[in-house]
């Protein structure tokens, strides 16, 4: 894994961006981290549902809601979360949702989801739109139950999109982005389309017959925008934030830059760190991260996976979190230091040690042919916390560097 390549020209007053890392968020929030890092959008914090409930949205201009489990997101946010989110947008906040984060604000009659009925639109990938014979075509793997219907998925990986509303990539309206279960929407008065499904590429993987895939997607809406009060919702079926799609990344980044400053919050102007965070903190961090990484690497060779919530987790996913940190560690180690209180430092190191401990126990239990499901559940929760704590420091250091360079 190479070092993470950062932006050469970070903006001086970037919007304050919150990334949702709470219940239901899968690892794809880390894609947002990469994107923001690459674009020098360094005023970033990480927010979970509990923090939303106590007002965390007050401190940000925009919120990134990534892929994962929409139901879990809706359930954990509840009515109060919904109210806070709505207020945030109406007061000028920017909501960016991809995949699960895109389903969340769509009209729905399902429990919990019905608290987020902000965009009146129908999706085209729902079973009520299929004939009886077509329903039968769906393998079990291509659908998610949705009340007495099911949401189905026709293709994965690359889809070809046509941008609308002036959005372009390198002067072209055609752009490719990957689809992993995100919605396809029917045109609606309630929103403005910004991207339409136009076709496939040789990298598209069809989950059903190509003609049915085409019927489901072609001409329907892949991404859209809706004004709500003083703010906007932008929702994306495909993952415009996926790190391997720089053109789609660019479109998303420009939207964040343009629309993400309506709340007139002040950019974070970090004071120079009062005392340089001791080298020993980062050394300790490296030591423990290395310990975790090597056990995680070993687990990748074992025939295990875990069902957490309603999603399968593979051992490789552990290292997805750890590598995102590892690739940024040299930067912090060689930098000017950041302000982290001794208590926070201690807490962070302890949680990382706990991560290593959990991983080692999982390895032992697996060797003894014992179940590791419960341990895995704890582990992934912990990993989110460990990763977002570390990345908070990382972005703070980046921001400090930008401000200092431009002063």
């Amino acid at each position, binding site marked *: 894994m190479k070092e993470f390549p950062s932006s050469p020209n970070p903006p001086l007053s970037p919007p304050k961006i919150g990334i949702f890392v709470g219940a239901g968020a899968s690892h794809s929030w880390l894609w947002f981290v990469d994107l923001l890092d690459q674009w020098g959008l360094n005023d970033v914090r990480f927010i979970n549902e509990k923090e939303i409930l106590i007002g965390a949205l007050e401190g940000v201009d925009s919120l990134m809601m990534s892929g994962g489990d929409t139901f879990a997101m809706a359930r954990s946010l509840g009515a109060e979360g919904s109210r806070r989110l709505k207020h945030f947008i109406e007061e000028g906040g920017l909501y960016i949702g991809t995949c699960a984060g895109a389903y969340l604000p769509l009209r729905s009659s399902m429990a919990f989801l019905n608290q987020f009925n902000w965009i009146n639109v129908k999706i085209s990938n729902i079973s009520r739109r299929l004939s009886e014979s077509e329903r039968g075509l769906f393998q079990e793997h291509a659908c998610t139950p949705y009340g007495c219907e099911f949401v189905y998925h026709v293709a994965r990986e690359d889809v070809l999109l046509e941008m609308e509303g002036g959005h372009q990539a390198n002067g072209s309206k055609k752009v490719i982005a990957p689809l992993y279960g995100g919605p396809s929407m029917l045109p609606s008065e309630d929103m403005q389309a910004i991207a339409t499904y136009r076709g496939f590429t040789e990298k598209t993987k069809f989950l059903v017959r190509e003609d049915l895939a085409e019927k489901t997607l072609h001409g329907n809406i892949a991404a859209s925008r809706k004004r709500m009060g003083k703010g906007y919702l932008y929702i994306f079926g495909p993952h415009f934030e996926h790190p391997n799609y720089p053109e789609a990344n660019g479109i998303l980044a420009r939207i964040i830059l343009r629309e993400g400053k309506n709340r007139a919050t002040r950019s974070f102007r970090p004071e120079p760190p009062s005392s340089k965070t001791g080298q020993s903190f980062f050394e300790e961090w490296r030591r423990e991260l290395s310990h975790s990484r090597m*056990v995680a690497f070993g687990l990748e060779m074992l025939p295990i996976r875990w069902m957490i919530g309603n999603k399968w987790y593979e051992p490789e996913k552990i290292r997805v979190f750890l590598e995102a940190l590892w690739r940024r560690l040299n930067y912090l180690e060689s930098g000017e230091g950041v302000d982290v209180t001794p208590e926070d430092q201690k807490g962070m190191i302890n949680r990382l040690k706990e991560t290593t401990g959990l991983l*080692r126990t999982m390895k032992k239990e697996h060797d003894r042919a014992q179940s590791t499901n419960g341990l895995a559940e704890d582990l992934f929760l912990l990993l989110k916390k460990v990763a977002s704590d570390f990345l908070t420091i990382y972005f703070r250091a980046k921001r400090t560097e930008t401000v200092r360079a431009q002063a």
Partner: protein
Amino acid sequence: MEYLTSNKVAIVDLGTSKIVHEKLDEALVREKIGGAGVTCELYEKYKEEDPIILGTGLFTGTLVPASALSMITAKNPSTGKVCHAPLTLYAGMEMKYSGFDYIVIKGKAPKPMYLWVHDGIADIHDAKEIWGKNVWDATDSIRDSMGDALIQVLGIGKAGESGSDFGQVCINYWASGDRWGFGKLFGRKKLKSVALRGMSLLEIADPEGFVQACKELLLAVKNGPFAGKQGIAELSAEMGEDIRKWLEPIIHRHLSCFNTPFPTNTFVFLDEDPKHLKESEKNEPGFLITDVYGLLGFNKMGLSAQDSSALLRECARAGIDAVAVAELNQKAGMTQLEEIKRSFGDVKGPLEHLSKEPFSPWAPPAPMFADFALSPDGSQTADWWKRRQAMAYIFGIHPIFALMSPELTEEKLLELATMGTGLEFTPETLEQVVGDILK
């Protein structure tokens, strides 16, 4: 240093438990290239403190064919000469990725310790749990506690702990090419083991050029006269001692050291049917033979292949050099398995063929399979061998494979060095380094 390196040297003081990290000085690499060139220099620098230097070769752990070698450079506790012991299997490679190119271990620990080196961190750990354990159990214990079975452990057993002249630094469970009694040195320092693990990335100055050249080199070597031959018994046959039939019935498989085209190691099954392909139900069904001389030593005593291998296994557990065990027992007239097993604590006395060279005689003293155009009267062989070993220990090439591959010429190695590091290396520099090492 930017390329083919972790750019880090650790200076470990066992006496004070202080560890200092230094950058690998590019000027040092320009002057000494790598491997033994640099370890000798570091040895000189710290020689007052009786140092053990662990070092990687310039190409160790890369796609250069046979780039398996790292080394221990230290003073032979018996002769007082500075010499190099080879670290092969996966240990040489692992060291390269551990985050340090060189590790200087000086001083003496007040109580048993082990050094844990991983991803650019070097830590001294208390070894009270493993001191006194045999090599196998100590390795298992470290791996279990860290939760990682890929950790490479350079460790000593009873022999090294108790100051036997033939205490060997073993690799995980197996014998190494340490013929110098470096195990005794470890023991004297109360250093039970050095555990290595690393997951770093080595950058290359000219990646495509370098890899292309590696590919061409492999293509040139892999169809050499050794092609189709495998394992420890073929080595011995080539040395004029044909034990192929003797060993054959217990052979399970032949294994290569990292990226080495000829598998110089043979796994024999002792408590399991050698033809058994599935994972054995037994935890310790056999032994990996890594040293042809140890095997030949027991063979010459008239032992069966099964008994010889079982003895090799016992030697490795105790961390004692099997070559010495075989030679000295034979001299003492002991040829019975059980007698020999009990003798480990008592083997003493000078060995007949104590090498005067700085490189381990673990690598046979002549070309293997290949023709290096040496004069048939053998007058050039000794000097050729020394020079060939020097190349291997500078660049990190498997020292036995270096004897099989005339295609790995000095010019080629220099060319690769420049492509890999972006630094200009001339034949004059190489000449100088070889001269220094052989001094």
